[in-house]
């Protein structure tokens, strides 16, 4: 059975591993649409998959945030990724399964996963 006492050990582990967090320039921002449309379409498992995948890979330069409805409800769940070079990629009809590939290809290796983007999916 878990208890809050375990937090102390977690705190010490996190502390020792994130010394570099302060001097990060150029972090990647992942924005998940969390309005009614996004949530109904499955944004929660997508958001949590990003959190878990980023934690698993110990990526310190990734900030995961949320936004409201951006007006393309028919393509929800929608995820936008902002990279330090100022580029924005919009991924549509997201699933938790697609997240692992986006983290590996786009966030870690810098290659946009074209087949999941809005450009490929709006015909």
């Amino acid at each position, binding site marked *: *059975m*878990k*208890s*809050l006492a*375990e*937090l*102390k050990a*977690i*705190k010490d*582990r*996190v*502390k020792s591993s*994130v010394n570099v967090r302060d001097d990060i320039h150029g972090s990647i921002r992942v924005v*998940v649409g*969390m*309005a*009614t449309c996004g*949530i*109904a379409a499955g944004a*929660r*498992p997508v*958001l*949590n998959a990003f*959190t*878990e995948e*980023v*934690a*698993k890979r*110990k990526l310190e330069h990734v900030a*995961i*945030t*949320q936004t*409201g*409805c*951006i*007006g393309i*409800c028919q393509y929800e769940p929608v995820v936008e990724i902002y990279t330090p070079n100022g580029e924005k990629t919009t991924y549509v009809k997201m699933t938790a399964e697609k997240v692992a590939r986006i983290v590996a290809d786009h966030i870690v290796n810098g290659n946009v996963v074209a087949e999941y983007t809005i450009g490929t999916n709006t015909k």
Partner: protein
Amino acid sequence: MQELSLNILDIVQNSIKANATVVHLSVKKITSECALKIEIKDNGCGMSEEQVEQVMNPFFTTRTTRKVGLGVPFFKMTAEMTGGSFFLDSVVGKGTTVKACYKTDHIDMLPMGDIAATMMSLISVNPDIDFVFNSKVDNQEFCLDTREIKKELEDVPINSGEVLLFIKDFIDENQSNIEIII
């Protein structure tokens, strides 16, 4: 929405928009009476009387990206379709309380679903808001208060991956113990 925990996630988005700093979520179930009550209470900016009247209307929203606002009407519907009831109280400058009461033996009763995933989502992207989650099923109680967690963590952010995974497991374990799923 397939499960009530998604409706909860959606309703709390309103609290976030209202600049709440503390959001209380309580889930109470009395098995012998087939009664379930979900209450979400925030200390956000609140709504005027006119807004409270309008918020039940699916064609009212404060947003500008589209013309419908379905969060509150959906949540209200989940309760009313079980023969339950729905209340919304709001005071400008004080906050808003939303209550939904369910009759759990009704055929249209939705499952509670993954409440731990809802809490994890909320905490991960709103580290500055405090969440208090209370559940009471018959005589068994569980409480998670992010203020207590933050106190333990000191300067480690509550939305660090490892902390979030711990919170999710912590809620999951305790919730499976008390069988909140209907």
